């Protein structure tokens, strides 16, 4: 009786070992060179995003021999004006890469706490954009605080126009009270969205101008992110693009 029980236990142990090891081998094979799927990251094969009201699957081209062709495969453009840009637009604004963009799409975009901003002029946006992006050209975002287009953009980003602020309240806010670092005399940015702003890539000046324009009107720098890679890097990694048309 005892022997039968022991045999059963040994059998269960052997079975568990075999199952565990085969699962490990399978996982290793999937992650190793023999992998068939080219994912966005090691743990994220693809993602979905709502673009112009439709669900779009963002993935990479499943062909290791695929080579980029067309405009974004070009290595050089006339400089100036299309000169390489520094990594930082402003020391207060964080520069991000593709993985941060993926995470942003899955978190801030889905919860409506962020926007992916294509800061290029409409003629560029119309020819393909990063899925989930909305087009706010830098020409709009670098306008002054009193410009109607800028006001509309700020409202859509979640900023609220303020009533007249008393001198005392203003002074207190300047001292850091009442969430003063998120407010200007004209605008309250307390509930504004986080923005990842991008354009054509490292040699594009459109998103840096948009970021500078937003900083000038008081948009909190901690809510601004610069995706320097832009469309060029997005396409270089063969990531899905969407056409707004």
């Amino acid at each position, binding site marked *: 009786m005892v022997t039968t029980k022991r045999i059963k236990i040994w059998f269960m142990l052997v079975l568990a070992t075999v199952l565990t090891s085969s699962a490990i081998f399978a996982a290793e094979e999937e992650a190793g060179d023999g992998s068939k799927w080219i994912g966005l990251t090691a*743990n*994220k*094969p*693809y*993602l*979905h995003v*709502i*673009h*112009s*009201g*439709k*669900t*779009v*699957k963002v*993935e990479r*081209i499943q062909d290791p021999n*695929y080579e*980029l*062709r*067309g*405009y*974004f*495969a070009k290595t050089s*453009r*006339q400089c100036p*004006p*299309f000169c390489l840009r520094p990594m930082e637009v402003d020391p207060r604004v964080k520069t991000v890469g593709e993985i941060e963009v993926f995470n942003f799409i899955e978190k801030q975009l*889905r*919860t409506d706490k962020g926007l992916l901003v294509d800061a290029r*002029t409409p*003629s*560029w946006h119309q*020819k*393909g954009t990063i*899925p989930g992006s909305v087009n706010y050209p830098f*020409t709009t975002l670098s306008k002054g605080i009193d410009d109607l287009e800028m006001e509309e953009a700020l409202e859509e980003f979640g900023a609220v126009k303020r009533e007249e602020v008393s001198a005392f309240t203003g002074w207190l806010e300047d001292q850091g009270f009442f969430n003063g670092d998120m407010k200007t005399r004209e605008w309250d940015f307390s509930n504004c969205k986080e923005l990842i702003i991008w354009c054509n890539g490292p040699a594009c*000046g*459109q998103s840096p101008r948009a970021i500078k324009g937003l900083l000038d009107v008081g948009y909190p720098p901690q809510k601004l992110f610069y995706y320097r890679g832009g469309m060029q890097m*997005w*396409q270089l990694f*063969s*990531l*899905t*693009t*969407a*056409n707004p*048309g």
Partner: protein
Amino acid sequence: MRVLSQQLERPDFCSSMMAWLFFLVITLPCAHVAAEDSYLDQLEAESKKLTNRPIPAPEANSASTRVEKSGAGLKKQPTEGKSLIPSPDFKSNLAMVEFENELKNRFLGSFTFYKKLPQPSKEEVYHGYLNGNSIKDTRKIIMSRFLHSR
């Protein structure tokens, strides 16, 4: 210093200085605007070189969304025959609760996975349905969300 003060006392010198100042005040902003216009012109000219309208991906969930793969010359063809209208056996424009009930009644398996999804993913599935995703696509998204949610 003496020379300068003498010069300043001369009316013709002052008027020429004023003229120069006036010229600078007028021309500097104009130059800035001209530079800006030139940049925009160059941008527009450059955008015309971008002619590779990428090709729709077969994995797209709707035929009307022109979802694409980057680059030109891919051999993949557009999705064909995918309906924008929800499957006829699934009513359109349901409220989220009704949509969930319908899913529960008709596709219990998918609903089991759906209810385990985080709220943003549930909303995404629902909005996809509202925007015309077929039930087949809706179920596919549910599975994808379930398998890849972290």
